[in-house]
């Protein structure tokens, strides 16, 4: 029966589980690449001269930082996407409870799903890490960030580490999402899951405020540290803020909708606001990777460009290249996670979209509604990312460069915004365009 439920869930929710599977594959690949790169830097076959040159070039430290970044980023987005995917099947879980599935059976089912998604994704990610990592090391050599003697040395030791991290995060993300519904009495669970308008607990808000406040206080402390320590510690601060933002996300989105409501005319924009407010919980899950990617990239880019503007030197080319490409990799990773989260939310709204179509919404109008929602979410994400990045970056800039003013070239800013809005648009408008092609009648769940 147990594996029966699991198999059914896997089949029925295969599209929502594709999201976490993709992010876990990517996360596993990036972590494995960084682990294997780190191993390559201290490989026994390396000559003493190469060893010295690696140490002098700072690549050991940089790789350690990248490894840390990739683990934290992966933990966060995997937990968020898995949580979102399980949240989408709470109604099924409640239904199963009502027909006699015990909490234990359902807990097992959720656990097994997390494992069934995580294990193959991690293994595939590790396999992918071999060609990717050898490409990464070759690029570092080509850009003189590493001496020519360094060879990429893949090893199986990464397997337990990567699988452990991914599996652990995935299971925790899934368990947290399912906990409440699995524990509740079936009737309560059913009525709670029949809409997304669930109560936002004060504990959640308090924890969110604590993390954001702590993050801001932390960045003041961090800015007093030595420059290279500050760089590493800043990431912790940023992560704390991003998790806090994720927790506060529903409140923030509802507040944004409430602020805009009186300013907008009735009709489509109003419908979009209502939907954002009503779906604030799942949409907040999509905010986390978006804000994280934008804040992370914003800090990296602004730190480099401001330093170049103030000191008049762009910095050592190898270091600059490593920084840029590392940032690009993490942004791509977080971007994919955000895309996944958005698609997961949208796909699970298929029935709602069908209802709107039956009520007389043309495809064009639905696309307009969803684009307005996307614009609101993206704008909120940009503002939050600006706040998080600013809180982390400004004290650092002040300590290291003596300025409070970040200098970012306009084209870089424009490119960043275009990317952010592009990801949100792609993750919302495309699924709607695809979903609404099928007749509404067959998607509305038993019209007849």
């Amino acid at each position: 029966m147990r594996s029966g439920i699991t198999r059914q869930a896997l089949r029925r929710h295969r599209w929502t589980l594709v999201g976490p599977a993709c992010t876990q594959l990517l996360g596993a690949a990036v972590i494995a690449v960084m682990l294997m790169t780190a191993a390559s830097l201290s490989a026994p076959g390396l000559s003493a001269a190469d060893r010295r040159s690696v140490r002098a070039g700072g690549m050991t430290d940089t790789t350690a930082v990248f490894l840390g970044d990739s683990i934290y980023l992966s933990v966060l987005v995997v937990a968020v996407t898995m949580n979102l995917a399980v949240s989408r099947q709470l109604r099924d879980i409640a239904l199963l409870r009502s027909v006699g599935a015990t909490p234990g059976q359902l807990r097992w089912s959720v656990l097994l799903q997390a494992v069934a998604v995580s294990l193959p994704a991690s293994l595939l990610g590790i396999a992918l890490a071999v060609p990717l990592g050898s490409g990464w090391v070759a690029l570092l050599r080509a850009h003189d960030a590493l001496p020519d003697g360094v060879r990429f040395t893949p090893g199986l030791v990464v397997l337990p580490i990567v699988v452990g991290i991914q599996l652990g995060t995935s299971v925790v993300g899934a368990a947290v999402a399912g906990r409440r519904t699995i524990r509740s009495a079936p009737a309560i669970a059913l009525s709670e899951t029949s809409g997304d308008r669930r109560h936002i607990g004060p504990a959640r808000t308090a924890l969110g405020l604590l993390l954001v406040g702590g993050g801001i206080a932390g960045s003041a402390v961090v800015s007093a540290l030595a420059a290279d320590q500050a760089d590493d510690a800043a990431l912790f601060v940023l992560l704390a803020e991003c998790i806090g933002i994720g927790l506060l996300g529903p409140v923030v989105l509802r507040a944004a909708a409430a602020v805009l409501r009186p300013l907008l005319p009735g009709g489509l924009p109003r419908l979009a606001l209502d939907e954002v407010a009503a779906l604030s919980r799942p949409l907040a899950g999509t905010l986390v990777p978006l804000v994280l990617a934008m804040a992370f990239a914003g800090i990296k880019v602004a730190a480099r460009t401001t330093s170049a503007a103030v000191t008049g030197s762009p910095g050592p080319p190898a270091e600059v290249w490593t920084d840029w490409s590392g940032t690009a990799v993490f942004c791509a990773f977080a971007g994919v996670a955000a895309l996944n989260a958005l698609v997961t939310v949208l796909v699970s709204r298929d029935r709602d979209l069908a209802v709107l179509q039956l009520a007389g919404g043309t495809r064009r109008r639905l696309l307009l509604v969803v684009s307005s929602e996307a614009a609101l979410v993206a704008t909120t994400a940009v503002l939050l990312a600006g706040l998080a990045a600013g809180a982390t970056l400004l004290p650092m800039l002040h300590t290291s460069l003596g300025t409070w003013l970040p200098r970012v070239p306009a084209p870089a800013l424009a490119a960043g915004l275009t990317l952010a809005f592009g990801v949100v648009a792609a993750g919302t408008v495309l699924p709607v365009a695809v979903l609404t092609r099928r007749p509404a009648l067959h998607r509305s769940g038993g019209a007849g």
Partner: protein
Amino acid sequence: MDTVVQLTGVSRSYRTGGRETVALDDVSLDVAAGEFVAVMGVTGSGKSTLLHCAAGLERPSAGTVRLVGRDLGRLGEAARTRLRRDSVGVVFQSYNLLSELTVAQNVLLPQRLGGPRARPLAEVLASVGLAGTEQRPVGELSGGQRQRVAVARALAADPAVVFADEPTGALDPTTGAQVVGLLRTAVDTRAVAVVLVTHDPRVAAASDRLVLLHAGALVSDGPTPDVAAIAEQLAAVSGAPQAASR
């Protein structure tokens, strides 16, 4: 009187796994403004298919459907959707509401989507016995209350016709009778046309005209008799060979 729904020689067949099912077989039917038509027949006789074709939710394989004077076959998907939004209300057994939105937001959906202005919300909700529930999330309501919200949405902007497919199927007899009563009132006071599919003779008894389907064909069409006679007619056409004619 104005004809609001006009089906002429409408057929619909489905091809599944190489086998052809004729769900609707050469059905012709006119419904006038202010007319309340009940459609009955055994399961699989084509009632839902008839309703879907008439409401422009599905395209017939043959024949023409005119809705408030417009030939649906000549309209594209978007134009048919707008026509439905502006002149048609639909109510299904499964409510088809957005459960995370409030009662008010659900009732105003067609208007938000660019449809005609609804009558004042308080009045609409009062007319279905839901006064004061504007701000309640639909997810919290009982089945009967949800179905009233669906009826309120269908009637809010004074449509020409309401199509209802087993709207009382999930409700207890008393609540079901109340919901049908709401449709009856709309017919009597605002000349809305109603086409209602049901399995329940007591529900059908609220109608003016009874249409019976068997194996996709229209086998009987006449004034609605009393409850006992409805049940008798239904048994007669369902049990009888398909050759029955109007």
